[in-house]
């Protein structure tokens, strides 16, 4: 199944229908994407916190 077929499947059926397609293999894709999103968000938050800390330390420097 290529990307066009996936998009058509989502548009024609509902989301539930999409996740039941291809023997529910899309559920695995969905879970993997969620894990990636979680990882990306946690790294992004850590990055921002570090930037704030760096700014604070820099501003305290005599």
């Amino acid at each position: 199944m290529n990307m066009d077929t996936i998009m058509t499947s989502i548009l024609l059926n509902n989301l539930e229908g999409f996740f039941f397609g291809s023997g529910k293999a899309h559920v695995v894709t969905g879970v993997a994407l969620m894990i990636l999103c979680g990882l990306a968000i946690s790294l992004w938050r850590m990055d921002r916190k570090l930037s704030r800390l760096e700014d604070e330390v820099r501003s305290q420097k005599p």
Partner: protein
Amino acid sequence: MKGTLNWIWKGGGILLLAYVILWGFSTPLQPGLVSCSPSQLGLDEETITLTAVGQPFARDGEVPEDFNLVLRSGKQLLRTEVTAVSPHTLEARVNVPPTLPTRGLDAFLLTPTAGTLFLGNACFVEDAAKGDIPAAMALSKPDDPTPALGFSFPFQPNIMESIRNLLWHVPMWFAMFFIMGLGFVASLAQLRTDSAGWDHRAEAAVHTGLIFGLLGLATGSLWARWTWGAWWVSDPQLNGALVTVLLYSGYLILRAAMGDDDRVGRLAAVYNVFAFVMLVILLMVLPRYTESLHPGKDGNPGFNSYDLDNSLRAVFYPAVIGWGALCYWMYTLRLRMNRLAYRLLTQ
């Protein structure tokens, strides 16, 4: 400007990984034959059933006109008659001759859409005498059909659907090599300059590289279980990978054991230089001189044209860049933590 560029490569890496997950899991596998039933044939008319996995090679109820199943014994071909086809199975009638060049029969299934599917030693004829296939049952080589499959991953025996693990396992090791290489350069620079900055870089690189090394070991072990049949086999590539990870664990233990000792930076740098040399020897040099189960063949642990095709490359290369970017992002975070901790401790 610098901040924007930073977010572009970080976001780009995550987007590439999202692309890899989408394409990697949704691309169908090309069909491949996995079994033949019964596996032992008598000297009579027999009906055999071939089972395939991957993309369906036919629709339900399709008339099997264009399907041709040929059995090969030695260099001679045996005629069969296809009687039924379903998306993943094919039924055929075969008149087993009393004489065959070899007792083992290879199956070639010629299909109009999926091309030619092959199953080596599909079945055996124990009672067959050694001799040529009678002319009436023999077949001349049919023309190979041109496959009309869309974008799909190649079928490889044993590996089958697990070929998708290539997009996780291999790029994780590549990311580890890359970041350990950075650590090696940082340690060399540390030895030259005795600067804390280079020591921070080396520590961050080893710390991040070790995470990817452990992930590489875990994904490889899981893959080995369902392709080679065991969680771990005594293979030079696998043992080399384990020793490398243990060596780098030793680097972190050394640092922790020395605490705030002033010599920790230089000692750790010397250790890291040797650890990287061992990584190159154990993972890149030794496996090439020994027989290995790991792809590819003849003791060459690298990937070649037999293991990768263009459809896999279209996802594999983005995976290498994506995992590399994620690894580098994690390295920069660790490095900034090291710098902050150092600044707070020395203030």
